[in-house]
Structures are given as structure tokens and as C-alpha cells.
């Protein structure tokens, strides 16, 4: 049980927090920490475990967010369907990007992922008749669990916690299963892995597709929680950077790391917004400087991320 002590403590604390905390601001922060933690964990499946660094994961997040929103607005069906549709579309998109990863390595793959998210951004911002264009799309609030119209933030904590546990377990599977070992081999040296009979290409595509699907689920839940989908935000490189940064700061290729990274990134950002939100709103951009500084400090003093640093 010892290796899981940290994770058990973390998830138990999050699960119990709504019973004792009733401050809306704190609960809101907690929901966002979990959403970004899930997205960072999903990113970690491709970026950490499979070694395919993507800076275009907002593409999948946006697909999930739009799928959930459009199901309510255009077809008047449950956002749960939207969540499933978003995950399915993202799986397909992830498979395409996974296929690209077999052709493009290193920086070329990173650039391709950014390009995919930007193409989707332009598509969503221009297709006014369907996506409502760059104005964005409000998600209708219809009270009820089936319509995901939930005002009580405590319920949201638990809903996202379920997803967080799923993401955590998928990552754990990648640490101790056959496929996990094979994927690690592909990450370390693809040719050597191939020479040992590892179906490297197939594994990479599957990992990126799974990562995409989970990211889309995050996007769908986030859209229902926030109630508004803005293409310039959900498909932004900013968001992609946030996912990868949380995972890298927390510890690449560790199951709990992305969640710890999300705690840090979200707290810092929320604090900055609270501190400079009003008068000095032009200073909110400071978070980019802080991100950069944090990243430099991490690489210098804790290259294995928070998880590696805590293990020492």
C-alpha cells in the first residue's frame, strides 16, 4: 500500500473536502484543480508515458467542450451524449495525430500538434451557423444530473473526482502492465523496442487516442461546469501549455504527478487573478512569467518533477 499512500491521501482529502468546506470560492478552485489535473493526467499518457510531447491537446479539450455544448444547444439532447460523442471524435482525431507521430519526431511532432489545435480554433471560430463562431456558445442550464445542470459545486467536486480516479488508474495501468512496459520501451528507444517485437506504432497511436479521449471528457465536463465555450480559449495554445506544464511540474510519467502539478499551477493562477484581477488586470499576464520561472526552477532543481523531488 505504501506506494499508493500519497494518492490515497490526495483523493481522500479531495473527496472529503466538500463535507467540511462550504466556501464557494474554495470549492470552485477545487473543481478546477481536478479538471486541470485530469487534463494534465490525460496529457501525461501521451507526453509522459508514451513520450509524445504534444502542445495541441487543447484540440481534444475543445472538441469535448463543443460536443457537450452543441448537444444541448443544437439537438437538445443530454450533454452525457455530448461527452461520449466528444470522446469518440477526439479518439479519431487522436488516432490521426498518433499516426503523424509515426512520421514526425521530436519538434516536428510538437509543431504538428499545435497546428491541429489552431486549425480547429479557426474552424470553430468561422463556422458561425453551427458553432456560433468566435462569439462562443453559452451552454444551456437545465437542472438535473442527466442534463448536467448542477448548481451545487460540492456535487461537481465528486463528479470530477470520479474522472480523476479513472485517469489515475489508467496511468497506474501504464506503470505496471505489459503495455506499460512496452510503451516505456518505445519512449526510451523506438528502434530498440521494435527489434524486441514491440508493436511500437500501434501502441503510440493507441496511447495518443486514449489520451485524446480522456482530454475530451475533461472538456465536456468543464463546459457544463463553466457554462460557456469560447473557441479562442478552449482551442488555445495557452491551455495546451497548461496541461503539459502541470504534468511536467508534477512529474512526467508519474500517476499522481499531474494532479500535484495542477494544484500548484491552478493555485498560483487563481491567486494572481485574485491579486491583480481588478485595477492591475494588465498584470494578470504575470502568470506567464511565473510559469516560465517555475519551469526553469523545476528543470534546474527537480528535473523529475514534484513526485521525483518528494521521493528523495
Amino acid at each position, binding site marked *: 500500500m505504501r506506494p499508493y499512500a500519497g494518492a490515497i491521501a490526495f483523493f481522500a482529502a479531495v473527496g472529503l473536502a466538500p463535507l467540511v468546506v462550504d466556501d464557494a470560492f474554495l470549492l470552485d478552485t477545487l473543481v478546477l484543480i481536478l479538471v486541470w489535473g485530469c487534463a494534465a493526467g490525460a496529457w501525461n499518457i501521451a507526453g509522459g508515458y508514451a513520450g509524445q510531447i504534444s502542445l495541441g491537446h487543447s484540440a481534444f479539450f475543445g472538441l469535448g467542450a463543443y460536443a457537450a455544448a452543441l448537444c444541448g444547444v443544437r439537438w437538445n439532447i443530454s450533454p452525457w451524449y455530448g461527452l461520449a460523442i466528444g470522446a469518440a471524435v477526439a479518439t479519431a482525431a487522436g488516432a490521426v495525430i498518433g499516426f503523424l507521430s509515426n512520421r514526425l519526431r521530436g519538434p516536428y511532432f510538437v509543431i504538428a500538434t499545435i497546428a491541429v489545435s489552431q486549425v480547429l480554433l479557426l474552424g470553430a471560430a468561422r463556422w458561425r451557423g453551427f458553432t456560433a463562431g468566435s462569439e462562443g456558445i453559452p451552454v444551456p442550464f437545465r437542472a438535473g444530473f442527466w442534463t448536467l445542470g448542477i448548481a451545487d459545486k460540492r456535487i461537481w467536486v465528486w463528479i470530477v473526482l470520479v474522472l480523476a480516479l479513472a485517469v489515475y488508474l489508467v496511468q497506474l495501468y501504464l506503470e*505496471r*502492465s*505489459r503495455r506499460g*512496459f*512496452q510503451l*516505456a*520501451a518505445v*519512449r*526510451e*528507444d523506438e*528502434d*530498440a*523496442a*521494435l*527489434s*524486441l*517485437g*514491440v*508493436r*511500437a506504432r500501434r501502441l503510440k497511436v493507441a496511447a495518443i487516442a486514449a489520451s485524446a479521449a480522456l482530454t475530451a471528457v475533461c472538456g465536456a465536463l468543464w463546459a457544463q461546469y463553466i457554462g460557456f465555450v469560447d473557441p479562442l480559449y478552449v482551442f488555445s495554445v495557452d491551455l495546451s501549455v497548461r496541461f503539459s506544464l502541470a504534468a511536467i511540474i508534477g512529474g512526467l510519467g508519474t500517476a499522481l504527478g499531474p494532479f500535484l502539478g495542477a494544484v500548484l499551477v491552478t493555485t498560483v493562477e487563481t491567486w494572481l487573478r485574485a491579486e491583480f484581477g481588478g485595477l492591475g488586470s494588465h498584470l494578470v499576464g504575470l502568470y506567464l512569467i511565473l510559469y516560465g520561472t517555475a519551469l526553469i526552477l523545476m528543470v534546474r532543481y527537480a528535473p523529475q518533477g514534484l513526485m521525483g523531488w518528494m521521493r528523495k
Partner: protein
Amino acid sequence: MDAKVSILSVRGVTKRFGGITANRGITFDVAAGELVGIIGPNGAGKSTLFECISGFYAPDEGEVELDGTRLTGLSPDLVCRRGIARTFQRLRPFQGMTVAENVMVGALTRTRDVRHAREQAHEWLRRVGLLEKANAHARTLSTGQRKRLELARALATQPRVVLLDEVTGGVDQRSIPALVELVRELHAGGLTLLVIEHNMRVVTAVAQRIVALHMGEVIADGTPDAVARSPKVVEAYLGQAYVS
């Protein structure tokens, strides 16, 4: 040769890179249980031939067959699954993994059970004399130990034929005899091996048969003695055959 059954056959393999022909119509057979050495000066086409057999290169012409089934055109992972394992001249251990985990990756090609793969990995590490390093990180190994690790990893895929690329290359002189002994032991255990070797003394000591390449072509194929005396081979090496 006639009495034995050919397990690996290379038929007219030709590989060109632009205007350079790295392999030209290479043809030879390896019998089950045989240990065949491949020699040749730098640039003779030895490594290209290995890449063609293991599926990393697709030959422009010719066929590679394992036990009568075509391997040509298969990707390296499928070639391995059919029963050909290889090591690399430039060693490529999975640096971030432990020694045992490196070998497990090979074992997991044949078993779905991680625990079983771990047991097999330890068994292979014992056979190559690396068991005490099982839990060490691969990056901490010496070159000689890395050679053993690559060998264990390849063997864990339960190959029918093993291609060894420069087992003693880059290894300090004192470690060579033990490595040679290990190759001999594996061969005595019934393994079929195809070995690229720079070191003539090593290859004549272990190989039953030698195929000599020069400028991408086979210039001699026979017993170590016969090949070493072949005028073409002596010429190719400029008479330095025994100097190294």
C-alpha cells in the same frame, strides 16, 4: 551443410542508397544450430545486411526467408515475432529502466503475464552473468555489461536465430574472453547465431563458418581457415587479416 537444414536463407539481397550499392546480390544460408561469422572491412556492407535481415531496411532486390517463410517487407517488430532477434552495434539499452525491466520488454513479446516475464528476465540475466545488476539502472552499466544486457534482452524474445552486431566492439581487452565464452555457451546450448565481428581472432575462435563481404558482395564463404587463406579476403584486408 547438406545434412543440416537451412533455417535462415538470404537470397540475392541487394540494397542501394542513391548511387551506392551497399549490398549486391548477397546469398548464403545458415543451418539450424550453426554459428556463422560475417567479416569484412569497414563499409563492406555487414551492418546494412543486418538491417535488411532484421526488417529495418527493405532490400531493393532479393529475399530473406526464415524456415521457408518470407521475411522481406515485414517491419522489424514482426521479424522479431517470427523469430529473429538482434543486438545493435551502437548499444541502445532503455536507459531509464532497470536492467531487469529491459529484459522484461523482450520477454513480454512472448508472454502476456508481467510476473512471468519478470521471472524469465531474471533467468536470462543469470545466464548472461548479470543477475546481480537486475535492479540497477541500465545507464549505470559498463560497456561490457551493456553488451550482455542487449544479449539477454534479445534472447528473452525466444528467437530461433540471433544476429549479433560486434559483440566485442568497444569492450576493453580483458572483458573480451568472457564475452566470447558466453557466445560459445549459447551456441553450445543449441542457438543459431549470425555474428558480425571485426576482431578476426574472436571470429575464427567461435565461428564454424565465415562469410566474407567486400564492397557489398560475398567474396568468400567457408570454414574460418579457408576464408582466412582466400586471396580475395587477404587482398580486401590488405594483408592485415591477423594484425588486428
